[in-house]
C-alpha cells in the first residue's frame, strides 16, 4: 500500500486540531452547536476513509508480521489458532476473549498471540513484551498484530463467549473487579463509568454498568488510533491507562485480570458493531 507520510502527518495535525476544537466546542455546544458539530461530522467522514486513518499503517505492519518467519522455529504465525481454526482470521476477534482447549485457559487476543509466538515460533517474547506499547520511534509488534487481526472482524458484531464454564466464571470475576473500590482514592471502574452522561473535565465517560449502546460503541471501536499519543492502541493500553487514573498499581501486561475486565465489558457490549481501527482523541 502506498501512502505518503506527508499526507498522514498532515491528517494527524488536522485530527489534533479538530479534536481540540471538538473539546473546546463541548461546553459551548449546548448553546451554539452547529459549527463544531459540522466540523466533527466532517472529521468523522474523513476518518472513516481508510486512506486517512494512520491506524491502517499499523494494520499493514501487522499483516507483514503475521506472515514473517521468526523465532527458533523460523516459522510464521500463519498456523496460529485464534479460536476459529489455525490461520483463520475472519471474525476471530469478534469472539475473543474465549476458552482455548490447548491452553486450558480463557485468553484475550494478546495473551493468545504471545502463546502462539512461544508455542509455534519458539520466539523469545521478552523483547516483544518490552515493546508492548509503542513509543516515539519504537513500533509495537503486539499493537500492529492486533490492528491487523481485529480489522478482519470489521463489520462483525461483538459475540461474548459464555458457553464454557471458565468463560462464564471469568466474566463474573470481571464484573466483580469493575465494582471493586480500592486505593488511596477509593476508586473503582464504576466510579467513572456507571452513570450515563458524566464527564471528567471535558472527557465524556461511557457508562458500562448497563448493556447497550455506550458499551457497544466503545468496545466496537478498539483498537483505535489515538491522535493525542500518535499511536495505535489496544484494550491492554486502555486498561493500563484507566488503572493509572484509578490510582491502582501498574497491572501486569496480558494478565488474567485484564482479560476478566474485557470479558465483562464485552458482555455489556454484546451485538455492537466492530469498526476498527477507529481514530480518537
Amino acid at each position: 500500500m502506498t501512502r505518503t507520510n506527508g499526507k498522514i502527518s498532515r491528517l494527524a495535525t488536522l485530527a489534533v486540531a479538530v479534536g481540540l476544537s471538538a473539546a473546546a466546542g463541548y461546553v459551548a455546544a449546548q448553546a451554539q452547536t452547529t459549527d463544531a458539530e459540522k466540523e466533527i461530522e466532517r472529521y468523522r467522514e474523513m476518518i472513516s476513509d481508510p486512506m486517512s486513518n494512520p491506524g491502517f499503517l499499523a494494520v499493514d505492519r501487522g499483516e507483514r508480521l503475521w506472515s514473517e518467519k521468526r523465532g527458533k522455529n523460523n516459522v510464521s504465525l500463519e498456523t496460529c489458532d485464534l479460536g476459529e481454526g489455525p490461520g483463520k482470521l475472519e471474525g476471530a476477534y469478534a469472539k475473543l476473549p474465549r476458552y482455548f482447549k490447548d491452553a486450558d485457559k480463557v485468553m484475550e487476543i494478546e495473551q493468545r498471540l504471545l502463546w502462539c509466538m512461544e508455542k509455534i515460533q519458539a520466539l523469545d517474547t521478552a523483547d516483544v513484551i518490552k515493546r508492548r506499547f509503542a513509543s516515539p520511534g519504537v513500533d509495537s509488534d503486539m499493537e500492529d498484530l492486533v490492528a491487523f487481526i481485529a480489522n478482519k472482524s470489521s463489520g462483525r458484531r461483538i459475540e461474548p463467549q459464555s458457553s464454557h464454564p471458565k468463560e462464564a466464571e471469568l466474566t463474573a470475576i470481571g464484573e466483580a473487579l469493575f465494582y471493586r473500590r480500592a486505593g488511596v482514592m477509593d476508586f473503582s471502574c464504576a466510579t467513572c463509568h456507571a452513570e450515563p452522561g458524566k464527564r471528567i473535565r471535558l472527557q465524556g465517560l461511557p457508562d458500562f454498568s448497563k448493556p447497550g449502546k455506550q458499551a457497544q460503541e466503545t468496545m466496537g471501536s478498539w483498537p483505535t488510533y489515538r491522535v493525542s499519543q500518535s499511536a495505535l492502541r489496544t484494550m491492554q493500553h486502555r486498561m493500563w491507562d484507566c488503572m493509572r487514573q484509578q490510582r491502582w498499581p501498574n497491572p501486569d501486561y496480558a494478565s488474567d485480570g485484564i482479560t476478566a475486565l474485557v470479558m465483562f465489558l464485552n458482555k455489556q457490549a454484546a451485538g455492537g458493531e466492530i469498526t476498527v481501527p477507529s481514530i480518537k482523541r
Partner: protein
Amino acid sequence: MNKTIFIAAAFALSATTAMAQNAPAADPAKVDAIIKDMFAKVSPEWQARTNLDETQRVCTDSRNQPNAQQAEAIQKRELATVVQPADGKFLGDWKKGFQVANTGTGGQFSDRPGGPIGANCFACHQMDPKELSYGTLGPSLAGYGKDRNYDPQVIKDTWTKVYNAQAVFACSNMPRFGSMKFLTEAQLKDVMAYLFDKESPVNK
C-alpha cells in the same frame, strides 16, 4: 382487588431482585487470586493498595448501596478519623487552593517521585464559574461560600466533608482526602479557602 395488585407488584419486585442475584456471582477467593496475579510484579507497598479496608469492603459488596446500619457504621467510623486543624483555622490561601483543585497528579504509578500532588476537584466539580473544563461526577460548587453566607458552621462541616467525604455520606464517590493522607493539612486549608474566601473566583 387492590391487594391482588399489591401482591403482584411485590412478586414482580422480588422476582427481579432474585434474578439479579441469580446472575452467577464470582467466587471472592478467585477474585482475590486474579488481583494478586495482576499485580504480582509491583512493590509490596503498591500491592498493599489493593487491600480493601472495612469501608471499601462494604461499599464494594453493596455496590455503593449500604443498608441503614452499614451506612451508619461507615459514617461513625470515618468521622472518628477526621482531625481538626491544629490552630483552629479552617481557611488558608485560596490561590494555593486553586493549585490543589486544579492539579491532577499524585498517587498514580506514572507520577515522578516528589512531583506535585493535587486533589483534582475540577475533575468532578464545577468551581470557578469561568473555568469551562470541569467534570460532572459531583455537584457544582460554583458560588459555594457566597451562597452559604460564609457561615462558620458550614465551613466547619465542609472541613469534615473534604477531609472525609464518607463521614458525611457513606459510600460517596468522593475520595477521603484527609483520612487517606492524600492531602496535607495545609493543602486542605488552601482548598477550603478556594471554596470560602470572599476573594476566591469560586465566589465571584
